[in-house]
């Protein structure tokens, strides 16, 4: 069984009226089945409001399913009495870099998770040193987070999760508020963690360029998983993606348009190199 597995997962947001009675329910996630293997790099795509963030919060037991089950490392999130055991296994990085850094100094923030887990002091230091190294933020360890760029803040947030030694990291739109350079920085750090440390990565995003290196892509719309496959399989369906309010990288779109105009090149071209070699063989 995979590190994260969902079976018929459903979740309703409840809206209460003034008397505290349930006024209406809104289905945010519907009948989702997932099986994510340890060490995979998985991307979940979807437009704003497609339910992808709600799904992500289940993986960290911040939300518990209304129906169905979600297992993290064989622990059923709705049955586990000590939720923090699940949270330690599946760390989470959020969208807004300012609203997830607790410490006033970089290294103290990275140490926050291990402190909560009751790790002995010496080990905390080792973990902090190690995690800062992995995301390339060692030089900034004594800085105030307020003085860092967005990309740097997100790397600190990632280090804070890495220091908890999770088996899996869930990143909920970590780059949505960053500029292109910040986005690159963060993605590089994430990919390195996945490749060098074999940490399972679940990246939630609506930037298509970020998922071309993923092992597997899930596309969500209206709370349902509507597409799944390798990036190439997903991106060869340009029109379907457009229907789900998503787009494809420009190179994929160009290749798609050329195909429609009768140029004989394969579907699902993901990089400039692929297009050039298809056109100039």
């Amino acid at each position, binding site marked *: 069984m995979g590190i994260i597995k969902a079976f018929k997962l459903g979740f309703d947001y409840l809206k209460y009226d003034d008397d505290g009675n349930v006024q209406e329910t809104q289905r945010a996630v519907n009948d989702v089945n997932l099986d994510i293997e340890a060490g995979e790099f998985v991307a979940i795509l979807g437009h704003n409001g497609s339910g992808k963030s709600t799904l992500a919060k289940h993986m960290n037991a911040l939300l518990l399913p209304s129906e169905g089950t979600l297992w993290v490392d064989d622990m059923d999130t709705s049955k586990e009495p000590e939720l923090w055991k699940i949270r330690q296994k599946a760390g989470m990085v959020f969208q807004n870099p300012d609203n997830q850094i607790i410490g006033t100094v970089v290294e103290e923030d990275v140490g926050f998770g291990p402190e909560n887990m009751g790790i002995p002091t010496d080990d905390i230091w080792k973990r902090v040193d190690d995690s800062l190294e992995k995301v390339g933020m060692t030089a900034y360890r004594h800085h105030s987070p307020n003085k860092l760029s967005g990309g740097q803040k997100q790397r600190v947030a990632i280090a804070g999760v890495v220091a908890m030694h999770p088996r899996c990291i869930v990143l909920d739109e970590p780059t949505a508020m960053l500029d292109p*350079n910040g986005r690159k920085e963060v993605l590089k750090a994430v990919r390195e963690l996945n490749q060098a440390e074999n940490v399972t990565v679940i990246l939630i995003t*609506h930037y298509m360029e970020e998922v071309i290196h993923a092992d597997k892509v899930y596309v969500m719309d209206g709370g349902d998983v509507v597409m799944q496959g390798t990036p190439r399989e997903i991106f060869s369906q340009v029109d379907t993606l457009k229907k789900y*309010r998503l787009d494809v990288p420009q190179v994929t779109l160009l290749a798609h348009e050329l195909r429609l105009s009768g140029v004989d090149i394969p579907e699902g071209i993901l990089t400039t190199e692929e297009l050039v070699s298809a056109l*100039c063989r």
Partner: protein
Amino acid sequence: MSIELKNVTYTYSPGTAYEIHALKDISMYIPDGQFIGVIGHTGSGKSTLIQHFNALIQPTSGTILYNGEDVWAEKYDRRKLRSEVGLVFQYPEHQLFENDVLSDVCFGPMNQGLTREEAEVEAKKALQQVGFKEKNYSKSPFELSGGQKKRVAIAGVLAMNPKILILDEPTAGLDPKGRDDILDQIAELHKVRGITIILVSHSMEDIAKYVERLIVMNNGGVAFDSTPKEVFSHYKELEAMGLAAPQITYIMHSLKENGLDVDTDATTVAEAKESILDALKSGHSYLLREVQTAESTGSVGKRTDREENETCKPGERRSDR
């Protein structure tokens, strides 16, 4: 309705250890009716620059002229300037505060001295022009989606009837569809109202499609100020500044280097498609199914060296067609 900057310099915390030269000796002229893009990475000075346009920031040295008048002259009415040069900030959350959308959009016009009734006329016009549906006018701005909030924020400034509209990162945080919708709407505004639009963005892809003039900021100075095509032809220098040209520019250059005679000036998918098709046609490429006439009805797999060479023969001109 022109804005002119003359040797504008702006320094944060001058005389302290934290001194930062955000703008260095900038001069530029913004005439009536242009659609301008301003691009630069975080800290390049682009946000500081646009706040000079409507006198939210006073330059450390240099002059800013609006219609030839110094906006920092003693008696100059800067509140009036701010209603003529509308600035929409990145986060709509920073300006929405009323109980309902319509009242919120009325805030600007009422500050100009209009009555509620007059303001509503302007507000409705603005909301309609940004594509905000009438049935949502009475909704709370806080329960809207990101894209809708952005529209209300833009309408809030538009309702003041500015002659120049500046938008700081209008697409930040939106999903791809939301992003395209908002940009199309802005382009439409430019057409319908005929006002000057200044669009600040990180994304070259967004800008390439719309603007007629592109200002690239780097290290507090203007690195380029020209047409997008001209700017993107310096794609290697852009890269050195931590910016990237649109992906299309890279594709076209790479194709050219590999012998396909395409137009490297193409910056949008549509232009690139035309150029590649032309190049393929002039090279009689086997890749074109259309031109697969009687002599080459063979299957896709049947490819010979001769044909391949022909596809990418260097030196062939499109005009040879």
